[in-house]
């Protein structure tokens, strides 16, 4: 190692860390872990209760089951990527981390573009299946199906806004990471 680096190294290593209350941080982290556990338990209870209510209170004929299944598929199409897209900080060197970060962000961009689109289609389809032939008057039946088109239009607009927001937030980050990767 040459002289210049040695001299800088000596200066660099003179700088010590700030006084940092590590016990306070540990207590805060333990609290956060407890809170996360409570959230998981709460989510689990809500899911169990929703499933229980669904199976005990709905008239479960083929039409209803089909509607629920289509809606569940649509919901899972959004929930699964939301839970799966996580950045892993451990056991990755800087270069791999940057690459996996870019990959994560690109997958995140697909959430409003692809996954939310599946959710919209499935939801509207599920409502239409569930409500098909449920009204005595043909007029009400038609109004019901048309109103689902209004829901479709609102969700479509929300998706459009979502895509715009995601792109304005994520694209500059991807650009920055791509530049860092190639440096």
């Amino acid at each position, binding site marked *: 190692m*040459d002289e*210049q*680096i040695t001299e*800088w*190294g000596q*200066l*660099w*290593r*003179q*700088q*010590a*860390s*700030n006084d*940092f209350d*590590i016990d306070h*941080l*540990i207590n805060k*982290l333990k609290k956060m872990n407890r809170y996360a556990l409570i959230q998981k338990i709460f989510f689990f209870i809500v899911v169990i209760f929703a499933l229980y209510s669904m199976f005990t209170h709905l008239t479960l004929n083929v039409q209803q089951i089909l509607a629920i299944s289509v809606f569940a598929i649509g919901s899972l199409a959004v929930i699964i990527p939301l839970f799966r897209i996580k*950045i892993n*900080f*451990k*056991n*990755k*060197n*800087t*270069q*791999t*981390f*940057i690459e996996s*970060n870019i990959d994560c962000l690109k997958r995140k961009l697909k959430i409003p573009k692809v996954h939310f689109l599946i959710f919209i289609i499935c939801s509207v389809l599920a409502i239409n299946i569930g409500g098909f032939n449920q009204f005595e008057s043909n007029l009400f039946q038609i109004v019901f199906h048309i109103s689902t088109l209004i829901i479709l239009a609102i969700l479509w607009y929300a998706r459009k806004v979502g895509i715009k927001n995601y792109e*304005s*937030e*994520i694209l*500059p*980050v991807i650009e*920055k*990471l791509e530049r*860092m990767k190639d*440096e």
Partner: protein
Amino acid sequence: MTKKDNFKHIYEQSKDKIYRLCLGFTGNTMDCDDLFQEVYIKVWNNLESFRNESNVNTWIYRIATNVAIAFVTNRTKHTKKNSDLDPNTKLSYPDKRFYSDEKIAKLYQAISTLKEKDRLLIGLVLDENSYAEISKIMGITISNVGVRINRIKKRLTNKMKSNG
């Protein structure tokens, strides 16, 4: 050894070098403290995954460098969302009184103006990590480490000179 003891042990062993890496990366104490705390939050959250398979030094440096990269990307998101500020703009100016020496302040400030990966690399070099270790942490070849160090040295010398 409990998780808390293990964490404290790692913290005591690594706090100074991680702090220096954060300070060199951010160039100011306010961001440095945030980044430093963020690194140890990630260390705590990933402590179970560390089973002494790799060197603790490499493991913690990998976390620190990755958190530093994420810190920049988060700032890019934040600045794009809230203002038209350049994401590289420092949130606060370095407090020279914090540094124990004027020369040290100049060195840290000069390093913080390098490219992100170069800041991390020179930080690892100045804390006496071997080329092989740096190669493992950064994911570049050993020969590339040498090439980059030469390039950074030239840039840093120029910056130090221009800063007086």
